């Protein structure tokens, strides 16, 4: 990253939009003011990981679409309370399925790494409140 304030290219935006447009159960994608919206940081991370894999590795987007349809159907067939629906939970299930079928990551690998992550307290390096500024640049004429 050369500049902190760098922004994505406009053509990336339209490319990602077109991937979203063909997703299954598109009417259930959470949106705000028409735009794709996320409530948790893991949701946008799972989303962008999938799009980045598609772009970098070149697997057909249809493969992810199929995995997502499968993940949603499987879940619905097992649930009695459909209000518990979360698009991005199904999304992650589909991505894990894709990762297994492609040989990118096994279930055991993900289970083991997730357990390691959960064993660390959240923000374990950064618990203490810092009540004074960490830096002050005095104003004044130079």
């Amino acid at each position, binding site marked *: 990253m050369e500049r902190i304030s760098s922004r994505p290219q406009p053509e990336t935006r339209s490319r990602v939009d077109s991937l979203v447009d063909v997703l299954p159960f598109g009417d259930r994608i959470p949106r705000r003011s028409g735009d794709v919206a996320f409530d948790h940081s893991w949701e*946008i991370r799972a989303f962008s990981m999938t799009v*980045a894999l598609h772009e970098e590795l070149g697997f057909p987007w249809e493969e992810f679409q199929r995995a997502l349809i499968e993940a949603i159907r499987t879940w619905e067939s097992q649930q009695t309370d459909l209000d518990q629906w979360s698009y991005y939970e199904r999304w992650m299930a589909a991505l894990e399925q894709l990762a297994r079928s492609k040989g990118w990551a096994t279930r055991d690998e*993900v289970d083991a790494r997730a357990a390691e992550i959960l064993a660390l307290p959240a923000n374990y390096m950064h*618990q203490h409140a*810092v009540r004074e500024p960490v830096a002050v*640049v005095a104003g004044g004429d130079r």
Partner: protein
Amino acid sequence: MSLEHDHSAPGKDDLIAARVKALEAILVEKGLIGSDAIDYMSSVYENEVGPQLGAKVTARAWVDADFKARLLADATAACKELGIGGMQGEEMIVLENTDEVHNIVVCTLCSCYPWPVLGLPPNWYKYPAYRSRAVRDPRGVMAEFGFELPESVEIRVWDSSAELRYWVLPERPEGTDGFTEEQLAALVTRDSLIGVTAALSPDAVTAEV
């Protein structure tokens, strides 16, 4: 899923967040994908998750001096008045920008961020380049965002942590007398709530009156 809320056990979101992190770590280690490629893709929509709530709180503080006083005294409680919560007991402090002092927020170690108010943090918030440069050269960082802060203004850099999260109350822009809260909120950007820029001037926004 249990309805009980047990703070000692990870919740459903913690569990799935850990799986997402785990999968990313594995894919990156295997060289299948770079974190920077994932960052880049998430930057496409990160603004859509934006600071609508922080903007709403800021606009209220600009028009209602009593609310502003309450916000600066206890941000968590003041946000709750507007129905904004979810901080799970974490303390939140709002820093007021004035003619003399400009505040900027950083998390020097990770990416502690008041997401219930500001939405998702932008990718650059967690880049080492931002974390270190905001402390060393905050004026230079602001300039990169196109914001030229007058030399006469003191800059204070604040470190958000898991226990105490900061955000900035920007100055109300000139030329906004008589603006409604909604019009004012449209001038408040996420970047201005982090302190890397000021709020937008009304000229910069297409007037839809």
